[in-house]
């Protein structure tokens, strides 16, 4: 049996989180001696497969290029994966909104559990995963013959990408793919930014309700420019309409673990901490010295953010 990793991509680019998932797969491979294959399913997505073959430690890339997968809807992705599932003992995808969307369907159709958001591989069938917003870590053991799981990218280092790969790309035909699934893609409204992607950025600076309005997020931009940082937000800031939803960090938003996380005007609710407390160094800028964020911060400054941010930018 083999291990299958589902690549995350937008038909053009392989998303870096795929390399973290391949690392998790590599850890399964280490204890099982199994080979890893990567599935690239999309439309006009040959370029993605060309990037995927470079990932170290994999044996093969499967390319499924069909209009049915152009937006990787859950219905078509899951029906594809179960069609090729027979030879795989482990099926892994990132715990992204895409992986979270189709993987539980894959599990249900295979009549096995889905193991959500693993953070470590203990053995072939035993994994660790956070529960209760990361306030507890569960070790879970699967009794199923197939392990279907999503992987928290920040918990695994990415594998290297090797320029001189000899891995082959195998085209997979899926003639009987279900095209009439009752679900149609209408539109995407994607937020484009020149900044690094939140979940893989080396530095993240996030603003909370304390930022007072969306305009003030400009104060973070100057600092982000200097540090090459991604900009994030608390849910309160997103709810208040200061910034868009793709910036939310937390239990129910994105999970980040950068080298440096700077929380500005964020109180530090457990749901926010769940998304950032594995960062290497945490800085908190808040005017309330009792804010819970200070309990996880390596460096805290009790100061009004409107005074602090221009100074911070100057000092860099």
């Amino acid at each position, binding site marked *: 049996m083999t291990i299958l990793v589902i690549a995350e991509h937008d038909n053009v680019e392989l998303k870096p989180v795929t390399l973290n998932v391949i690392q998790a797969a590599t850890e399964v491979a280490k204890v099982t001696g199994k080979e890893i294959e990567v599935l690239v399913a999309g439309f006009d997505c040959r370029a993605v497969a060309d990037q995927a073959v470079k990932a170290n430690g994999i044996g093969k890339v499967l390319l499924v290029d069909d209009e049915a997968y152009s937006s990787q*809807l859950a*219905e078509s992705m899951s029906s594809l994966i179960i069609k090729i599932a027979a030879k795989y003992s482990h099926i892994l995808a990132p715990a*992204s*909104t895409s992986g*979270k*969307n*189709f993987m*539980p*369907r894959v599990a*249900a*159709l295979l009549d096995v*559990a*889905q*193991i*959500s958001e693993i953070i470590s591989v203990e053995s072939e069938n*035993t994994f660790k*995963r956070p529960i209760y*917003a*990361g*306030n*507890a*870590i*569960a*070790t*879970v*053991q*699967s*009794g*199923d013959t197939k392990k279907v799981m999503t992987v928290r990218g920040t918990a695994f280092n990415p594998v290297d990408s090797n320029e001189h790969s000899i891995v082959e790309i195998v085209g997979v035909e899926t003639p009987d793919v279900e095209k009439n699934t009752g*679900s149609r*893609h*209408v539109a*995407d*409204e994607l937020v484009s930014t020149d900044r690094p992607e939140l*979940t893989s950025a080396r*530095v993240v600076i996030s603003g909370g309700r304390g930022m007072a309005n969306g305009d003030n997020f400009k104060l973070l931009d100057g600092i982000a420019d200097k540090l090459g940082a991604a900009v994030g937000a608390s849910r309160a800031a997103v709810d208040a309409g200061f910034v*868009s*939803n*793709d910036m939310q960090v937390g239990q*129910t938003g994105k999970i980040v673990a950068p*080298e*440096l996380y700077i929380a500005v005007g964020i109180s530090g609710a457990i749901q926010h901490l769940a998304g950032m*407390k594995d960062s*290497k*160094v*945490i*800085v908190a800028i808040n005017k309330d*010295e009792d804010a819970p964020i200070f*309990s996880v911060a*390596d*460096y*805290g*400054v*009790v*100061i009004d953010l409107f005074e*602090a941010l221009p*100074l*911070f930018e100057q*000092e*860099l």
Partner: protein
Amino acid sequence: MKILVAVKRVIDYNVKVRVKADLTDVELANTKMGLNPFCEIAVEEAIRLKEKGVATEVVVVSIGNKASQEQLRTALALGADRGILIETEQVVDSLSVAKLLQAVVLEEKPELVILGKQSIDSDNGQTGQMLAALAGMPQATFASELTIADGQAIVVREVDGGLQTLELNLPAVVTTDLRLNEPRYASLPNIMKAKRKPLDVKTPEALGVDLKCYLKVIKVEPPTERQSGIVVESIGELVTKLKNEAKVIG
């Protein structure tokens, strides 16, 4: 149109949980419990569709022990019409929950099923998708906008890159994200009225579902604690420390 909403009893979202000393689970005795916040949003959305005249009946269903009746009563007080408790003392895996919900779907034949995107205890985030697969229904997860028109559900979803809009044939499964709506509070008269609304109790056996344990929890540990940090006096000092001590900026 009938809407089925699945609601779960979970620890109150404000409670910071503690792991039990024997590392078997988290401490749940004497902890404040409540309706999973995402389920509350699901109930609210269903009630709004009823108020708009789109839905005719809102049925809420929960799988859990007897105490889950409280959460069903909460949903009834918010405006749901009828409750179903599938009573069991066992911890039920997501796949078994999905199978039980599928059995209810076959009995009730709803045109829309709304679930939360995630339970805040297990953080699984999978039941809705599993139900959709078992029921052969299209799905839209992480909904932040839902419109029913011409026998279809138009759903705006929150995805990593921004927003995505899908159109689903009904019957369909939708799971809620936080920004779908802001749930109302139940008024006292409605809480009183809810006590008289019908609440059926069923068993997994009666629904023909075997509660298999697919995933065994063998240990529950506290996360590694962070070393407590320091408060610095000024932004100047902060930048110096980040450069020279933490060495995270150049």
